[in-house]
């Protein structure tokens, strides 16, 4: 079932700049969707439009079946947002800002729940501190605590791990995994592709206000994934034997290694023939290695393809 439905959403800012150019996207209940895209792609704009911070110029968005404009109460009460910027009142105490968030979303007081959330985010010891007394990473966790305080069914995390150390990033991933376990739908934006690879079920790529693709992470990786076969030779080959000239091999490490790139999606990878041809050409193999292309390569490929088309 789809939890968030975005159809044909355009957003032009006051200056006339069109930050979303007809974005459509279905977000399934209970999934983790990672949105990747370069700076200025429109990730924050898309999230802001879903959450009610900006109004769509045209198109419709529903959350849990509630239209975000006409039935904003129904939609927004399901949604939690962790914004990209650290927007917090410096003089307030942690516990009060979190309590405020829960009340604002119409939920009755629940101190036990707030304690659980703050403990989980390692903020319990800091509950009576003022925001300005916290470190940057702690402030980011306060933002998460505020979003979780009203028990959202859909959680938007806009670059939750920007400026966060490695350990904390792992913690964050654990928290996200725990929320998914509890059935929360999670949408996160990130610039770290390994982050998307590590935790997302599906990956969307957005650039210049258009959603270029949304796919299951695994399917995406196999569909677009290319593999490299690295062939290490006993003796370096100064140049390729003529018989191998048109096999698209790349010579690396001064002739010690031959690199063959192939598509894992194809029926025939051509590896067997290649190996036979190599030994027929008189070269002796020492070792073989394969390497899967990372999402990063896919992502960069997609974005530059759009750039070429424009």
């Amino acid at each position, binding site marked *: 079932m789809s939890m968030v439905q975005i159809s044909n959403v355009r957003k032009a800012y006051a200056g006339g700049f069109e930050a979303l150019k007809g974005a459509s996207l279905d977000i399934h209940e209970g999934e983790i969707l990672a949105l990747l895209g370069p700076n200025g792609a429109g990730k924050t704009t898309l999230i802001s439009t879903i959450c009610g911070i900006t109004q769509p110029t045209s198109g419709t968005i529903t959350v849990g079946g509630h239209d975000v404009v006409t039935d904003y109460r129904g939609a927004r009460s399901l949604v939690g947002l962790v914004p990209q910027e650290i927007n917090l009142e410096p003089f307030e105490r942690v516990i009060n800002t979190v309590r405020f968030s829960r009340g604002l*979303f119409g939920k009755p007081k629940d101190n036990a729940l707030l304690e659980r959330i703050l403990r989980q985010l390692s903020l319990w010891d800091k509950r009576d501190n003022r925001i300005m007394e916290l470190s940057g990473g702690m402030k980011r966790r306060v933002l998460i605590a505020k979003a979780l305080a009203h028990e959202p069914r859909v959680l938007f995390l806009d670059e939750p791990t920007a400026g966060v150390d490695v350990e904390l990033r792992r913690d964050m991933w654990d928290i996200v995994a725990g929320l998914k376990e509890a059935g929360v739908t999670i949408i996160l934006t990130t610039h770290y592709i390994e982050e998307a690879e590590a935790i997302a079920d599906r990956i969307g790529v957005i650039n210049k206000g258009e959603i270029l693709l949304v796919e299951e992470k695994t399917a995406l990786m196999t569909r677009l994934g290319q593999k490299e076969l690295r062939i290490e030779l006993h003796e370096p080959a100064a140049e390729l034997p003529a018989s191998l000239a048109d096999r698209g091999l790349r010579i690396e490490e001064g002739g010690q290694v031959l690199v063959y790139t192939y598509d894992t999606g194809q029926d025939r990878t051509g590896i067997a023939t290649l190996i036979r041809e190599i030994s027929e050409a008189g070269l002796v193999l020492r070792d073989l290695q394969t390497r899967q292309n990372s999402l990063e390569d896919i992502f960069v490929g997609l974005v530059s393809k759009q750039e070429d088309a424009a």
Partner: protein
Amino acid sequence: MNWQAIRAIYVFEMARFFRTLLQSFVSPVISTSLYFVVFGAAIGSRIDQVEGVSYGAFIVPGLIMLSVMTQAISNASFGIYFPKFIGTIYELLSAPVNFLEIVLGYVGAAATKALFIGIVILGTSALFVDLTIQHPIAMLVFLVLTCLSFALFGFIIGIWAGNFEQLQLIPLLIVTPLVFLGGSFYSISMLPPVWQTISFFNPVVYLVSGFRWSFFGLADVPIGLSLLAIGGFTMLCLAIIWWIFKTGWRIRQ
């Protein structure tokens, strides 16, 4: 109605007030005392009585009005401007609340603070002069309505303001002169006829007059007109705020 949200906003805003309670309490006491020293003692020794009321007592309603109006405006305008300024407004905009709930929370808190200060001034005044309040209920109604309507007005200013200077601009350029010229410290009937006519275009005259009537039974304008003026002003502010939230003017892109 999302009552929890109204309560959350109200409590959060009041907490800001309680953090600086001493300051909130001491400064009106001091300034009121100063007014009594300057106006009551210096001028009062020459004027003596206005329409049968001692000058010191006569200025009390105006004094309260002056503080209550400026406090209500500055509290409410700051209350909504600050989240806009530091970015925490994202949370209000993404919460399941309508304009009325936001307004009730912020304006309610700002009006409460102003009311508190009004009462502190009233209490301080009672130390300096003999005060009788002929119509205590009407007095309270006027006071509360003034707190509310000027807090609404302040809320609009807070949304409109793009920087801290603008936040001060309207109170400084419009409200303070209107209040000073609104008969806070004199009776309109003491003015030359031309100025009397001009004064009746000043909305504050109606408020001060009505409020003073509740103390001494004296009014520059009929009491019904005073009520109408403050009611009309409240409705106008509400209508503007409704429009602001409907169009997202200055808050939602």
